[in-house]
């Protein structure tokens, strides 16, 4: 296949769209939690991994279709986010402990520690091996493009979830309040936003979308207790490129990353998938060395 054929193949375009939509969904959740905590949750990808395991066990033990289990698993993820917020993070955010200079560099180590804990407890409980299952793997033909049912389902569900959250954030009062808190927490508080409720909401949405993303990914590829971290990296790239709280640009960045990964692998070899992911990551941090915060207004 020639260079141009690769670029113009609908097959690849479809694959890039699926990857991009999944990245967008995961990044959206990371964006919400990151925006409220102001500390990168390195363990976000591990939530995705746990969602994948939940779907796997629901399918293989109880015989539940992942599509039916998805809302339930997302709800459990959201509940877990709520519980974690009320039990731990509400207090930490109130006293500003996570933003204190003492923790500035160390805050990330804290989440690295949590991530290592989650991954290895998962490895002890689920075994460290790759898992996977077959669901909706029949092939549908659309013109010259052949697509498996599970990929179509993943694309549609991830796209719908992203669109629903984008509409919620852009149109509803609660959504606008959430964005206000992400942009200026103190100012939002002054104008009467219920910051506590909004932060709880962002944790629920963030954790819920991560779990949903995990369910969708489990239908498409094999996963292990350690496959969450690349999704954290992907989500972080999307946030760096798209900006904090900027949903539209984030969506574009996610599709771009999906395209870079898919076309990059197609043009070179599968060995380069991780090289591409980390290369884009390092490159985008070097171009935007201050990460995503526009710091001047920070008080």
């Amino acid at each position: 296949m020639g260079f141009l054929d690769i670029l113009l193949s609908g097959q690849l375009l479809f694959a890039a769209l699926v990857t991009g939509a999944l990245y967008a969904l995961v990044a959206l959740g990371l964006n919400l939690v990151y925006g409220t905590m102001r500390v990168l949750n390195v363990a976000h990808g591990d939530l995705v991994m746990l969602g994948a395991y939940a779907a796997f066990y629901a399918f293989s033990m109880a015989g539940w279709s992942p599509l039916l289990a998805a809302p339930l698993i997302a709800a459990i993820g959201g509940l877990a986010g709520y519980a974690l917020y009320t039990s731990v993070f509400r207090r930490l955010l109130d006293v500003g402990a996570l933003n204190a200079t003492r923790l500035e560099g160390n805050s990330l180590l804290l989440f690295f520690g949590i991530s290592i804990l989650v991954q290895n407890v998962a490895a002890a409980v689920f075994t460290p091996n790759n898992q996977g299952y077959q669901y909706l793997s029949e092939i549908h033909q659309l013109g010259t493009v052949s697509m498996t049912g599970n990929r179509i389902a993943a694309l549609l569900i991830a796209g719908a979830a992203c669109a629903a959250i984008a509409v919620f954030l852009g149109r509803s009062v609660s959504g606008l309040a959430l964005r206000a808190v992400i942009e200026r927490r103190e100012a939002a508080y002054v104008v009467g936003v219920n910051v506590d409720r909004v932060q709880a909401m962002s944790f629920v949405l963030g954790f819920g979308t991560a779990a949903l993303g995990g369910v969708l990914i489990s239908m498409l590829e094999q996963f292990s207790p350690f496959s969450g971290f690349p999704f954290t990296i992907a989500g972080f790239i999307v946030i760096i490129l798209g900006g904090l709280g900027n949903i539209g640009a984030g969506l574009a960045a996610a599709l771009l990353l999906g395209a870079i990964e898919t076309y990059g692998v197609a043009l070179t070899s599968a060995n380069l998938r991780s090289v591409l992911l980390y290369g884009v990551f390092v490159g985008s941090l070097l171009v935007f060395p201050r990460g995503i915060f526009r710091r001047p207004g920070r008080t």
Partner: protein
Amino acid sequence: MHRYAWLLAVAAAVAVLAALPFFANAYIVGVGLTILMWIALTQSWCVLSQMTGYVSLGHVVFYGIGAYLAVVTWQQAPLALVVPAAGALAAAFAAIVGLPVLRVRGPYFVILTFGLAELVKYSIMAYESASGTASRILFGTPELTSVYFMMFGLAAAAIVLLEVVSRSRFGHGLRSLRENEEAAETLGVPIVRYKLLAFVLSAAIPGMVGAVMAMRSTYFVVVQAFDPMVSITVIAMAILGGGDSSRGPLLGVLFLSILSELLWAQAPTLYMIVLGAILVVFVLLIPGGLVGLLEKREKRRRTRPDAPAVFE
């Protein structure tokens, strides 16, 4: 801890470690080698990360580069040349990537260094698999004793380096930029040059450590030489020890290297769980580390005898 007690403990530890190969069996010497390796890695990490507050989560990249050079040039160049060359290569790598990387601050620096190490790892893996070498076997590696004494030298060099930097004008400059980079720059500290120099200095020793450790085993795989767990262990050791000198990290090494020796090979999952728990507990609850705890106790003991006198 009393100052003389500390000096005495260090002298005793040095004497035991220096004499170890003459009376202990191979297993114990292996444990000693592991401890020396962690000392060299942690102390060199401190030259950048403890002094400047730029917490690197990618220290293993230098180790891996050194190990890779040693393996690629195996039996084609004398060891006396390869080990320093590995240090020079790692330092050169730090010098090249240093300027852009050190512009990134705080939590972003942490994750960037992690990503950079992974990028180098996957790049070399892709190159190796493209050229058809998945793993390599080394023949004629030197005896354990000579590997041990090379590592002994590197560990000593790392401690001396940190102590010298820490007491120098350069070291005070690094501390000042840790406390407030803008203020330090305003006062005339050449922060860009200082940060880069600290980064390069902290890279040379792990490069040589990697080259020496490559000879320890006869089998080489890229994934192992660039294992991110090395970086995480180094950070855990430094945080566990705490403080602002070579002392804390040494205590951290002592506590953790036995654990890594016992668990890493046999029960890696359990080891990682312990490591994760240490990171969480120490960052959240004991940010001063063991040295902080000791100092607090010391202060309490020193003030206690005076306290009753006031009330009498």
